[in-house]
């Protein structure tokens, strides 16, 4: 008999857990029907999450869109709407930009925090790792900054982004550099991250299509030593070096290239559009570097809605809006428009996003069926005297120096 007792205890334990679970589930069901009704009174609110690298080495690209979204939601909630949007700190998920962390955070967001929608994930690698999960749980997502072209080809119904992808970015940058420098030999370099590879492939293809000789090299992100790439450049003597990757790696690469005596002009994409590129490489080494981006950063003097946005952002965060801040604001606005139209469930919001069309701060926001934005402008920037300056739309801008 004594041997049986532990089993009984265990059984009661299981029963208790089961009951607790079903109670909890019932509680949840109640909540969501309240939220779904949308007419249930002033107290109702829905939760929108944000996911990206909030503290890691590339967080400089992710904090501005987070701030943009915070700004948009704060403005909205201040209007005392019928349904408020909860975007508190606990809903800002720090994935460190890693594909292996993101899925766990999505699980937490869905099952524990019960978010209705998600802004992000910020990067392509993590977006790829959670797209299916978000789709299966009917959580609409709008990424302010994931630019890998492949993301739109997964058939995800709940996925959107408000930036042009690398297939637009690659040719945009290549066209611009061909006009500005007419290179004959181009070395395309990347590290081994999802985003970097995608952009580098797009760049290599675009330059090949223009008839240039293209050589490629790839290095491992975690290796400190990029000298093998510099050696390749020394031997190949390219007229242009195009880098697909983030600024943390871009700065180191640029420094080691220049230290190895490689003088070819350097062009890179949105992931490196950060002051970190200049400080990582050293101002002297970074001088003249060209950066293309589907994002529009209000550097210097701007007008119209972009100026309003810049002023509001500056007043709230005490700093000028940086990369993807405007896109983060637009992504948040997309959700706000949906809620204003009375959509409060994941499904309803997702349906609404298909028909949504408004003039965003960064560009006109309208989604294609696959979640891509209709507008695909690329903007170019250049480092001058240690500062990154906006040159303009890649189809019109002129390179200086």
């Amino acid at each position, binding site marked *: 008999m004594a041997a049986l007792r532990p089993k009984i205890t265990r059984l009661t334990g299981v029963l208790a857990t089961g009951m607790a679970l079903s109670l909890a589930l019932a509680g949840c069901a109640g909540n969501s029907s309240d939220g779904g009704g949308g007419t249930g009174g002033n107290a109702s609110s829905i939760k929108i999450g944000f996911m990206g690298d*909030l*503290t*890691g*080495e590339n*967080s*400089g690209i992710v*904090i501005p869109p987070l701030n943009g979204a915070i700004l948009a939601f704060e403005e909205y909630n201040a209007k005392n709407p019928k349904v408020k949007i909860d975007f508190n700190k606990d809903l800002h998920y720090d994935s460190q930009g890693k594909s292996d962390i993101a899925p766990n955070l999505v699980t937490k967001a869905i099952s524990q925090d019960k978010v209705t929608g998600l802004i992000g994930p910020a990067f392509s690698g993590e977006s790829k790792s959670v797209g299916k999960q978000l789709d299966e749980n009917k959580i609409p997502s709008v990424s302010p900054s994931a630019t890998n072209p492949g993301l739109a080809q997964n058939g995800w119904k709940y996925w959107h982004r408000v930036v042009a992808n690398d297939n637009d970015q690659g040719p945009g940058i290549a066209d611009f550099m061909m006009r500005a420098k007419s290179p004959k030999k181009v070395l395309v370099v990347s*590290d*081994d991250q999802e985003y970097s590879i995608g952009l580098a492939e797009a760049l290599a293809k675009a330059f090949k299509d223009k008839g240039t000789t293209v050589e*490629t*090299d*790839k*290095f*491992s992100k*975690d*290796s*400190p*030593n*990029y*000298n*093998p*790439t*510099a*050696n*390749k450049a*020394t*031997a*190949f003597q390219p007229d242009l070096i195009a880098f697909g990757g983030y600024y*943390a790696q871009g*700065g*180191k690469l640029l*420094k*080691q290239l220049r*230290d*190895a*005596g490689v003088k070819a002009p350097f062009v890179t994409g949105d992931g490196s559009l950060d002051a*970190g590129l200049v*400080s*990582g490489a*050293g101002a002297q080494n970074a001088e003249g570097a060209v950066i293309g981006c589907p994002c529009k950063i209000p550097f210097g003097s701007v007008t119209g809605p972009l100026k309003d946005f810049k002023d509001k952002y500056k007043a709230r965060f005490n700093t000028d809006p940086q990369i993807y801040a405007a896109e983060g604001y637009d992504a948040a606005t997309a959700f706000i428009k949906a809620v204003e139209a009375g959509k409060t469930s994941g499904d309803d919001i997702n349906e609404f996003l298909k028909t949504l069309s408004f003039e965003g701060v960064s560009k006109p926001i309208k989604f294609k069926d696959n979640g891509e934005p209709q507008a695909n402008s690329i903007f170019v920037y250049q480092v001058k005297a240690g500062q990154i300056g906006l040159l303009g739309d890649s189809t019109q801008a002129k390179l200086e120096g």
Partner: protein
Amino acid sequence: MDNFLGQFGPATVGGLAIGSIYALVALGYTMVYGVLRLINFAHSEVFTIGGFAAVGVFLMVGVSAPVGGFALIGLLLLTVLVAMAASGGTALLLEQVAYRPLRKHGSSRLAALISAIGASLFLQELIKLVIIPHVFGQSNGAIQLQNMPRVIDKTPLFSIGNAPIRLDHVIIVVAAVIMMVLLDRLVNGTRVGRGIRATAQDPEAAVLMGVNIDKVVRTTFLLGGAMAGVAGVLYLLYFENLDYRVGFVVGIKAFTAAVLGGIGNLRGALLGGFVLGLVESWSSIFLGAEWSEVTAFVVLVLVLMFRPTGILGESLQRARA
């Protein structure tokens, strides 16, 4: 072939430079292993701390432009001393806090290994959460130190074949070899060194012969740490770049170098470091930089298949008395 010839010279120079850094760090692994049979995983962070100490010196002295001549020699000596003190001190503290209590209680080597990994993570986070924001004042998520000062001029001094040699290349290789020779003399030619070798050979007999084991262990950690500190300075001169994880990759490579050369063997660490650096660098010519790590480890596996004790094989305890 042109491609290969064009890259071979610079790749060799780069391989020797990075190999020197691996070798210096490898000494710490190899010495501690020789004496305690412990793989000190936190050694990679001891290296990182040396780098941060060096930045501290550069910032405190206020270097804003490359210096040369005697000023450079003075600055480097000062930096190396401070970095050796910082890294050696950290290593001593590690021994005191993370390993000695375990050793005194006669716990298994596995426990010490876990303690080592824990200490490594602790130090990494300490650098990330305390040192970078509070000592260097970069709190805005900048895990990488920004705006690193440039201390030495990086224009080529002269060329061998088509390989331009810069001052930092020369300093790194020369400094590493000097440190290595000094350490080798110390271990093989002094009373302290004899104590270390005796302990490595047979701890119990060493105690019976009057060797103070605690002192020997402390000395071992101090020496290994100091070498890692020098490596940290050289790394900083070479890459002008630091973040809280730099030690991880360098540490793994250095540990590999130690095993490749024959763990427990000082000269093996030097050889292993150079071999690893060169293999990585040369293989990148053919396969691209992303394959450098794969090739390095394939070489390691091949060497261990045919020489399970590493290239030199002979370990610290069997070194000439």
